[in-house]
């Protein structure tokens, strides 16, 4: 079973507070909404959970089968989609995902890519270059990237941004399905997205314009 726990986790960007201390502990399966004002640290928290950012204080631990995950295991166990996640414009949709699958050591990359694209409704655009995609399609590609390797923890930062009604419906189906199997963390201020979760972390950061 996959678990995610944090103890007095906090982060600063120089003098500015990025994330006020927060502690939690979750085990799969569950879905958690991370909410809070702009600048309260939602994206920072997800980047720390993904292993992309080292916290200034405290610790965030991912456990797999009851023991702390190594860095390699952590990377393999996390699916991450955020608005600032970009892909290679000169490669096609399928080539971007195939590259990611190959780099992760997936021996059946083509099947994983096809399944992920079909889940987010992007199967028909597999051979389009990323540069030709709309914002909504790029968001679907981010979701496919996060889902493709069936991670133990799915981290979604504002997952419905740029999505149309069909995309939002697909997202709701995906979260409803994934929350039965793994930990899904959704950073959002959108009540519709928030309702996809069954637990909530409310960040009470200082928000915009405050330092120290």
């Amino acid at each position, binding site marked *: 079973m996959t678990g995610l726990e944090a103890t007095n986790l906090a982060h600063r960007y120089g003098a500015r507070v990025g994330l006020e201390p927060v502690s939690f502990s979750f085990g799969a399966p569950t879905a958690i909404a991370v909410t809070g004002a702009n600048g309260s640290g939602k994206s920072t928290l997800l980047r720390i959970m*993904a292993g992309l950012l*080292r916290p200034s204080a405290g610790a965030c631990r991912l456990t797999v089968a009851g023991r702390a995950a190594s860095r390699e295991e952590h*990377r393999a166990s996390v699916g991450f989609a*955020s608005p600032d996640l970009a892909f290679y414009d000169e*490669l096609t949709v399928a080539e971007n995902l195939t*590259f990611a699958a*190959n*780099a992760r*050591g997936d*021996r059946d990359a083509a099947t994983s890519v096809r399944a992920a694209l079909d889940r987010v409704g992007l199967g028909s655009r597999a051979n389009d270059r990323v540069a030709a995609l709309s914002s909504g399609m790029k968001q679907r590609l981010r979701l496919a990237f996060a889902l493709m390797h069936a991670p133990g923890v799915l981290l979604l930062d504002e997952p419905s941004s740029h999505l149309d009604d069909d995309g939002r419906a697909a997202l709701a189906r995906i979260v409803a399905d994934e929350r039965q199997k793994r930990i899904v963390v959704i950073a959002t201020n959108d009540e519709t997205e928030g309702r996809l979760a069954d637990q909530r972390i409310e960040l009470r950061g200082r928000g915009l314009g405050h330092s120290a």
Partner: protein
Amino acid sequence: MPTSGSSSAAAVWAILRKECVSEWRTRYGLNAALLFAVTSLAGVSFAVGRLSDRVDVLAALLWVVLLFASLASLSHAFVREVEGHTLTMLRLVASPTAIALGKLLFNIVFLAVIEIVTVPLFVVLMGAPAIGGGFVLLLALGSVALACAATLVGAVIAQTRGRGALFAGVSLPLLLPVLAAAVSGTRAQWMGGSIAPDAKLLGAYAALLFAASLLLYDHLWED
């Protein structure tokens, strides 16, 4: 699930292939490098003609052309990821060491392509002596050392402000030994002397840079 070692090798190979496809489609570095090499050789050739009797000048000229033709692209291997916002994706699928090794291998391949075009042209236009096994060995060792130095510096400065100026400052002391040994060895080869001391120096320096890189790469980009 793949083992750590096999997944690292898969990641390095995937990154190398991705770099090759991206470069082939965009020609970010290739066109500029080849344009520089061809125009600079043509310019020097028009100005001074063939320099068959000045192998000391030829040795220096060859390595200066190779260095400047390739350096802009080598140093931007990581900067392109930062400026294109694709570094996050890379970090999610591969370790920093695998990313850097993939980039290093691509830089070596890139240098080899530049050399395949530039060296024969250099021999024809500048009247350099025939290319032998010793010369190819020096070229290979010099290229690996050059790629190791440029990849290391490129990785370190990628997320810094003012990285252009920083690259020049940091890379100069790392590149000078490569340039000096490569020029010295090439001159010795073309004058009929022994290349062993310079080849050993280049090989040892490349190994040192590679070892230092392996120690450093896993601590990069931890914000």
